[in-house]
């Protein structure tokens, strides 16, 4: 009952006119981000943080945080919607989570059923969004109550588990993923240590006292890295955009896709809750599951509508599910949620079990706004599909330099110094080389956000235990987390060693 009361309060926040506007722009920009090649949800969210910071500068801290997280989350799930459009019309997925959608979606487009595919993708995403919201509202209270019982040792192990999960699934080589994670943790130690007040690795360089700004690093590695890749690899050949055609799906289409949508939503939601696994994995698994369960598996790959409905529902379900560990425990399970977490921390709001008690306005406002955002997306996408299809044709020669200019503007508007801009460009170049040679950048950003918290919890736990490291294994909960974390790294290694294909989760 209490939950319903909170949810109603959440709606009263989300229905304030400025928050409705924020949600609207969030999902609109998100859809465009999903459609445009070259920027994915992660860079999209990272690029918008500085802009929302300025937009909300007149509000008090809590409403500012609520409004900007509403916009940023809108970008996140909006991008999941938009990603399907390019998969279907161009056969080039806008996001990695829409790769499998292209298999059947493009075939449907070739048969002149692009409109039906697009609208089923929109309906599926909508249903998944609603289902994952119900899950979020139901699980939020019990999970944060559970997380409140954790001490520093348990927290340390839980965060380690989160990092292991993301590294284990992040790239082709686990070694490289772990290297990136450790690099992120090391970079996080730069600056004044907030326990002892000693400055570490700053070398009397004033810009380093507050540490490397996470926003600068994230925008550089993701947004600029991707732009540089497109410039260097001349990856902007123009494809033929298919005609959209009739938009409304037929009765048969709806009948064929209703169960896949439900299955995809549920599967996606639960995969999204797991740290490390995200939208990409969810869409792969639900496609495979649907093909196995189908009475006509031969139709898959030749334009089966279930092959569009299931993965598109799953990737949206996953983006909702991914909010759960972030909001209830303060553990982001993916690169994009790590960036959302960084945004909340910028407003001095610590995601985690206390979020629902200390800042119910932010937590429940966000949950309610996701509901409203999903309704807006459905209302936007059905009639505007043809407009978004036009966005694909934005010429790269204008788009790429403008993304660079927006990144520079965004970082400068928040940081006001040339040092961060140089750091931004350096991170862009590094981001290009890292991704090119399969060093995943998402674990680095995640580690950079989690680093200070991991260290604090480790030191608090060790101080309480008089420096005995055994505290991490004598607490049963902490031991359990450590074992799961180790398994998360070892099982993919074991599968690879046995010669199996391991599906990895890549974000753009």
């Amino acid at each position, binding site marked *: 009952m209490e939950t319903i009361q909170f949810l109603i309060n959440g709606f009263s926040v989300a229905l304030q006119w400025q928050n409705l506007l924020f949600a609207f722009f969030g999902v609109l920009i998100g859809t465009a981000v999903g459609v445009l090649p070259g920027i994915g949800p992660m860079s999209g969210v990272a690029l918008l943080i500085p802009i929302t910071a300025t937009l909300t500068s007149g509000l008090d801290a809590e409403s500012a945080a609520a409004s900007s997280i509403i916009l940023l989350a809108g970008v996140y799930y909006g991008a999941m919607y938009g990603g399907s459009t390019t998969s279907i019309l161009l056969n080039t997925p806008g996001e990695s989570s829409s790769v499998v959608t292209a298999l059947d979606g493009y075939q449907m487009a070739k048969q002149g059923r692009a409109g039906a595919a697009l609208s089923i993708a929109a309906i599926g995403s909508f249903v998944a969004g609603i289902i994952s919201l119900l899950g979020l509202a139901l699980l939020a209270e019990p999970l944060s109550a559970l997380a409140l019982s954790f001490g520093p040792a348990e927290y340390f192990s839980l965060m380690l588990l989160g990092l292991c999960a993301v590294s284990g699934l992040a790239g082709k080589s686990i070694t490289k993923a772990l290297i990136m994670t450790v690099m992120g943790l090391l970079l996080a130690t730069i600056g004044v240590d907030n326990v002892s007040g000693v400055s570490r690795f700053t070398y009397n360089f004033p810009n380093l006292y507050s540490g490397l700004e996470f926003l600068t690093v994230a925008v550089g590695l993701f947004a600029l890295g991707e732009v540089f890749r497109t410039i260097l690899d001349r990856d902007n050949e123009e494809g033929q955009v298919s005609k959209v055609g009739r938009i409304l799906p037929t009765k048969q289409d709806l009948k064929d896709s209703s169960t896949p949508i439900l299955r995809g939503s549920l599967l996606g939601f639960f995969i999204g809750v797991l740290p490390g696994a995200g939208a990409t994995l969810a869409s792969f698994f639900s496609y495979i599951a649907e093909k196995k369960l189908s009475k006509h598996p031969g139709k898959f790959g030749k334009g089966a509508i279930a092959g569009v409905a299931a993965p598109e529902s799953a990737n949206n379900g996953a983006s909702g599910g991914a909010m759960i560990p972030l909001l209830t425990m303060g553990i982001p399970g993916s690169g994009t949620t790590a960036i959302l977490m960084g945004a909340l921390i910028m407003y001095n709001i610590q995601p985690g079990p206390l979020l629902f008690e200390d800042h119910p306005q932010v937590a429940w406002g966000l949950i309610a706004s996701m509901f409203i955002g999903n309704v807006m997306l459905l209302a936007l996408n059905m009639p505007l599909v043809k407009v978004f299809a036009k966005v694909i044709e934005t010429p790269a020669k204008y788009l790429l330099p403008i993304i660079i200019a927006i990144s520079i503007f965004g970082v400068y508007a928040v940081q006001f110094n040339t040092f961060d801009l140089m750091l931004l460009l350096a991170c862009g170049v590094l981001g290009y080389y890292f991704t090119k040679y*399969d060093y995943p950048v998402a674990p680095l950003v995640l580690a950079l956000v989690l680093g200070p918290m991991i260290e604090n919890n480790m030191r608090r736990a060790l101080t309480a235990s008089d420096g005995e490291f055994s505290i991490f294994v004598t607490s049963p909960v902490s031991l359990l987390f450590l074992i799961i974390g180790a398994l998360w790294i070892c099982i993919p290694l074991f599968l690879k060693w046995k010669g199996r294909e391991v599906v990895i989760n890549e974000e753009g």
Partner: protein
Amino acid sequence: MKRIMGVDKVSKTFDRYAGIIFLLIGALFIVESRKISASSYGSNVGPDIFPIALGIVLILLSIRLLFETFKYSGKEKKKSKPDYKRFLIILAAAVLYVNLLESLGYVITTFLFLMVSFQVMERGGWLKTIMIAAAFSFGVYYLFVEVLQGSLPGFPI
């Protein structure tokens, strides 16, 4: 995006150099951490333990990476050569842009940067280039400074 469809880009040389660099970074963090241990009073868990431990892990992982490079199959794939010329001009323009931003002001530097980059991406279409670059630099400045009351370096006096 497109790259996830199983393109094998593993490059032996890059990974070797990267392994050595990460190894050196790990060593550097350990050496430098040992210098900050002095002021950890009241607790035996000082500010140096976490970075030292991470440095050790990084060294171990780098060694593992170096070992892995020996197992790569010998042939390196010929890839289409990246377009370094275009990239380096844009990067150089960006470096100039961020360093002149505070002295020349936002509008002028942004306009010039966009002009250069648009033309490097594809020559020609001058009128359209000027229009878009001007619209972006003036538009962002006006919206941010006048409408949102933000602060950006204005014009040189």
